[in-house]
């Protein structure tokens, strides 16, 4: 393929990206339709000293971190089990953990209304056992948001971790055991270091996804437990304050980029020259992030 024809092939794609992504995002930051760019920067500066917005930002980051850790704790053992299972069973287990990613987030989050709602499963169990007299307030809490997000993102964590774990030759672990290491020690010294790239990618994706998630905090947190995403929505479509909406947008994007750069650094120094290519970026990123 000549350079000229390769260049021509780029034209429609670059044009669409420029028109549908680069232009609107840059224009929003540099020239908002109402007010000026200095307005957005000024509002952002004001937000960084505003206790209300800061508490929401803090909650958002806290939810992101807890979600990341919880989905790692739930997902890693599954990924490890899949990587060690015989091919047929591994295929079924992998498909079962991928399937939820194909389902709308609204559907998956709705299920928590059935569990945590006023007449839901959990409140029925609690009042039925006589633990509480009245149906407790379970919805519209931070815990509800975390539960919903962990359910949403565990599959993504499983896929990322499995991407690395499936590259670990099980004979290495057996060799370590044969040379006298306990199974815990073999796991820690042999499996874990090789699994780290997948864990790092999975954790970054889940954190970024949880911090920017909208559906789950909207349905399970409501107006009582706002996150940056629901705050942005409020500014943009309820109070129609675009300057503030853009400022929150910048804030949210900065958090995600900062974490991306940070884990990119850590990952690079840990892995040396080896790139984390073995993690299935296409599918893991694809099905997961689009699903939020």
């Amino acid at each position, binding site marked *: 393929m000549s350079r000229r024809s*390769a260049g021509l092939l780029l034209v429609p794609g670059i044009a669409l990206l420029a028109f549908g992504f680069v232009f609107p995002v840059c224009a929003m930051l540099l020239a908002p339709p109402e007010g000026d760019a200095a307005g957005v920067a000024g509002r952002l500066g004001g937000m960084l000293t505003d206790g209300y917005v800061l508490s929401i930002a803090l909650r958002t980051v806290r939810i992101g971190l807890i979600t990341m850790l919880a989905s790692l704790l739930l997902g890693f*053992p599954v990924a490890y089990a899949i990587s060690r299972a*015989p091919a047929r069973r591994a295929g079924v287990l992998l498909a079962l953990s991928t*399937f939820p990613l194909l389902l709308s987030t609204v559907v998956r989050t709705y299920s928590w209304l059935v569990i945590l709602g006023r007449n839901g499963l959990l409140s029925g169990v609690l009042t039925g056992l006589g633990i509480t007299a009245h149906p407790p307030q379970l919805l519209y809490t931070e815990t509800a948001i975390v539960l919903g997000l962990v359910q949403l993102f565990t599959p993504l964590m499983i896929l990322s971790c499995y991407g690395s774990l499936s590259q670990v030759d099980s004979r290495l672990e057996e060799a370590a055991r044969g040379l006298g290491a306990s199974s815990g020690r073999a796991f820690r010294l042999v499996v874990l270091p090789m699994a780290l790239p997948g864990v790092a990618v999975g954790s970054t994706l889940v954190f970024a996804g949880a911090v920017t998630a909208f559906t789950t905090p909207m349905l399970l947190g409501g107006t009582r437990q706002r996150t940056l995403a629901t705050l942005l929505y409020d500014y943009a479509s309820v109070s129609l304050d675009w300057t503030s909406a853009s400022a929150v947008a910048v804030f949210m994007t900065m958090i995600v980029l900062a974490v991306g750069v940070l884990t990119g650094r850590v990952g690079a120094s840990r892995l040396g020259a080896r790139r984390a290519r073995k993690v299935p970026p296409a599918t893991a990123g694809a099905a997961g992030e689009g699903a939020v």
Partner: protein
Amino acid sequence: MRRRPLLTALCALAYLFMLGPILLVVAVAFSGGDTIHFPPEGLSLKWFGKALSQHSFTSALGTSVLVATGATLLALLVGVPLALAVQRGRLPGRRVIEALCLSPIVVPELVVGLALYQQLMVGLRVTALGTLMIGHAVLLIPYAVRVTGASLAMADPMLEEAARGLGAGPVTAFFRVTLPVLAPGILSAGLLSFITSFNNVPLSLLLTGPGTTTLPVEMLHYVEFSFDPVVAAVSTLLLALTVAVAVVTERLIGFNKVFGR
């Protein structure tokens, strides 16, 4: 393999957590009561009837299918050439182009939605449907480029060169040799793109309005204001549809090849 009761228990817990709640939605969908109640009060199909007869849901479904189809085709139409140029073009600044193609993933979708609303819908007066399609296509380009790029990287470039050496023009070589080799990758990318677009909420949220709403956004707004189980019925129908797609995919190409790796 050695038996590991702890590992098995942890896995069972994880699968229960991921899949259990979804099954509860199915149970509520068959409820005879008027609110979300578990265990369901009585048994009936009335919520399915209501879901299928409610105009806001059926018209939103139409919009969703239209947007997902249009955006997927658009993303493939520009994404496959992008992948070809990046993988085979020996272009200067390849990494920069690749990074640009993947960049829509980095910015939160809600933020992209806000930007598209301000600049395209309000600024340039593009219709809601047009903006939705452009936005979704932009969101899907990274997947199209990555998935087809991955199958291009595995295909042997010598095949094309052999075709060219045997006298085929570049266009013939592409359609007779490269495209058939890429077909499974393009099919995977298309399926993944369609599902991603169909389920999207954050990008669509600010671009939808009265008259043009996608199904997930309509469901979300409905749940915000009323507590009857209609959305459980819609969810159950979507679940059934997704299972059907998964089964067909498994028969045709293999479920894990497309979605799981």
